[in-house]
């Protein structure tokens, strides 16, 4: 039983991170039907910026919580800036292009950003400082869930609630929903679609950067390549939940994280990805539009 709890906690943590990244995927997809393959790189860049900022601050004598807050803040700002620029350069000119063209552009951008960080910084893995302190009260159950893990789960949950509120109740949220429903119509009723799309990229990037900082701090290392795998998994999660659907992305991410943890724990970690994708295939066979995706009856 304890083992099960241990695995569940491990899956929950993974799932929370996947969820943060998956949200960006799903939001972008919901609005412009683009698989933004470079989204994982935004997550990586967020983590790198946080690392650099915290390194600089440490050297200049800042300490503890102020580093965490500043590093996270600047990482988020930069990720947003990168997300915004990415959309403007690589996707906006392709708004009316054939459906697969932006996908290729995204793959190219992903390669570019990876190598940009490799060259500008280093190909090596870097130590990411443990920004999250160990809480005393978590000690008794630290072998099941430690403080950093708790922080990850809580932060993810808070971010998601924040996102939901943002989308449900704010002006920009409403505009986003309208654009998602029907871009032409939204434009007709006076929504600035370009701004909405930029905003979507910015919000998605912010979430990814939060994920990057949390993961970096949790596993203690980053390099230029971490975005790729995380991106693929998050994308899988988004599809699993029903791409374009925000609660779906979260649910999909949790299902994926837990599946991987149980597969690694009870079967073999060498095959955990096989199970992750296996679950995806199974779910899609029975629910072709994902867990929460609306079974869109094609209008005939």
């Amino acid at each position, binding site marked *: 039983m304890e083992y099960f709890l241990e695995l569940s906690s491990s899956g929950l943590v993974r799932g929370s991170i996947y969820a943060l990244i998956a949200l960006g995927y799903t939001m972008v*997809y919901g609005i412009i*039907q683009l*698989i933004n393959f470079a989204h994982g790189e935004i997550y990586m*860049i967020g983590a*790198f*910026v946080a*690392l*650099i*900022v915290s*390194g*600089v601050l*440490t*050297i*200049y004598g800042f300490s503890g919580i102020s580093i965490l807050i500043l590093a996270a803040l*600047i990482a988020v700002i*930069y990720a947003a*800036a990168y997300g915004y*620029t990415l959309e403007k350069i*690589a996707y906006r*000119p*392709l708004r009316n292009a*054939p459906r*697969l*063209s*932006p*996908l*290729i*552009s995204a*793959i*190219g951008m*992903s*390669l*570019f*950003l*990876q*190598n*940009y960080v490799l*060259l*500008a*910084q280093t190909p090596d893995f*870097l*130590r990411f400082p443990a920004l999250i302190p160990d809480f005393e009260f978590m000690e008794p159950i630290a072998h099941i869930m430690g403080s950093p893990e708790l922080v990850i789960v809580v932060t993810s949950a808070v971010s998601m609630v924040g996102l939901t509120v943002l989308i449900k109740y704010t002006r920009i949220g409403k505009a986003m929903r309208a654009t998602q429903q029907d871009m032409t119509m939204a434009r007709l009723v006076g929504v600035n679609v370009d701004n909405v799309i930029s905003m979507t990229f910015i919000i998605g990037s912010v979430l990814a950067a939060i994920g990057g900082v949390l993961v970096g701090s949790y596993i203690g290392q980053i390099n230029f390549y971490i975005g790729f795998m995380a991106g*693929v998994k998050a*994308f*899988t999660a988004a*599809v699993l939940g029903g*791409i374009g659907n925000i609660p779906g992305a979260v649910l999909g991410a949790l299902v994926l994280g837990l599946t991987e943890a149980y597969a690694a724990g009870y079967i073999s970690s*060498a095959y955990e*990805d*096989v199970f*992750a*994708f*296996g679950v*995806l*295939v199974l779910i*899609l*066979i029975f629910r*072709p539009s994902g867990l929460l995706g609306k079974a869109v009856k*094609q209008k*005939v």
Partner: protein
Amino acid sequence: MVDNIKRSLLVALWFVFLTFPLMVVKVNTLKNIVEWRWINMLWVAIGSFVLSIVWRWAMERRQLKSKKAEQGEEESVKPGFGQRLLEDPKIFKPVLIVLALVTLVFPLVVDIYQANIMVLALIFVVLGLGLNVTVGLAGLLDLGYVAFFAVGAYTYGVLNSFFGFGFWISLPLGGLMGALFGIVLGFPILRLRGDYLAIVTLGFGSIAKIVIENWEEVFNGAKGIANIPRPGFFGAEMSIHTATTYTYYIMILMVLFAIFITNRLKDSRVGRAWMALREDEIACVAMGVDMARTKLSAYAFGAFWAGLAGVIFASRNTYINPNSFTFMESALVLSIVVMGGMGSIIGVIIAALVLILMPEYLRAFSEYRMLMFGAVMVLMMIFRPEGLIANVRRKYAGRKVVTEDANA
């Protein structure tokens, strides 16, 4: 113009801001000092300023072009060079002859390196032509195409290391195994559409790699299978250079074979059904096309070429391990198809040559080569979103040649 410069200055400023932490700051954890690489900032500023001006100019041109196109004075007035190349026999024929000659003498005049990378490029041409059927014609987005490539390569590797099968027996077997896997993997995902299909196929690609990695008894895992023979020629002993040249000619034949066959299929009942499926699945089925059969045949046919290419790939490298079958390869082949212009055979060939040879010729730029590769991919898509050569549909000269004045 002044406005242009002003805006470009702003862009440069933005990029200076954007690249600041990564390009300028470098934390030296060893000595606990921060390196400020201000010179990089200057480069970024100058670089992005210049690029921005070029970008603006290019975008303006692009818009002008599309505006012209909207006003309806496009192709009918002056067909693009690509199209003229294909349709005007006066240009077409000499170009073809020159091309054939170059192709034939190529390995005889260049060194082993050029021949060797050309073989790799030709392998990707075949892969591109295969995936072109699945994605370009039938519209089934496949991000795990590399799985079938791996099936082919490992068919040869395993058959050779366990049973001593030679290249020429393994070649058709590899193709057939590829096709078989195409059907097996295609079956459960018949109902999926578009991007759902994309991620599931991506999953299949990863699963294939993981299985190869872990199933050591058969595939030898990460250690890979070594000493795979190069293609044989009646048991003749060949130096590597000769063998490479020989493989090159095999590949040329295979590419011609692939072009011939895909061309025939494209203009056939089967090919039209694939395209109809891509255009509108519901209408296609309502017109009496069996969706399952058509989809599976598209998968199997695409996978068949990947299987064949895989066998040659194994024999070319003489060694295979799972590292060659990652998502990057799938993405590469997909890029070839999209950049070439979906469904266009010549486009695919050009794109394959460009995408495979470019990283090789970019070797001079050493570690910058993948950076440039990524950038070129983005730029190509932006400036040619329809691909290098848009697909030209065949005109059926039925019994009535009314078609001549049809366009008027």
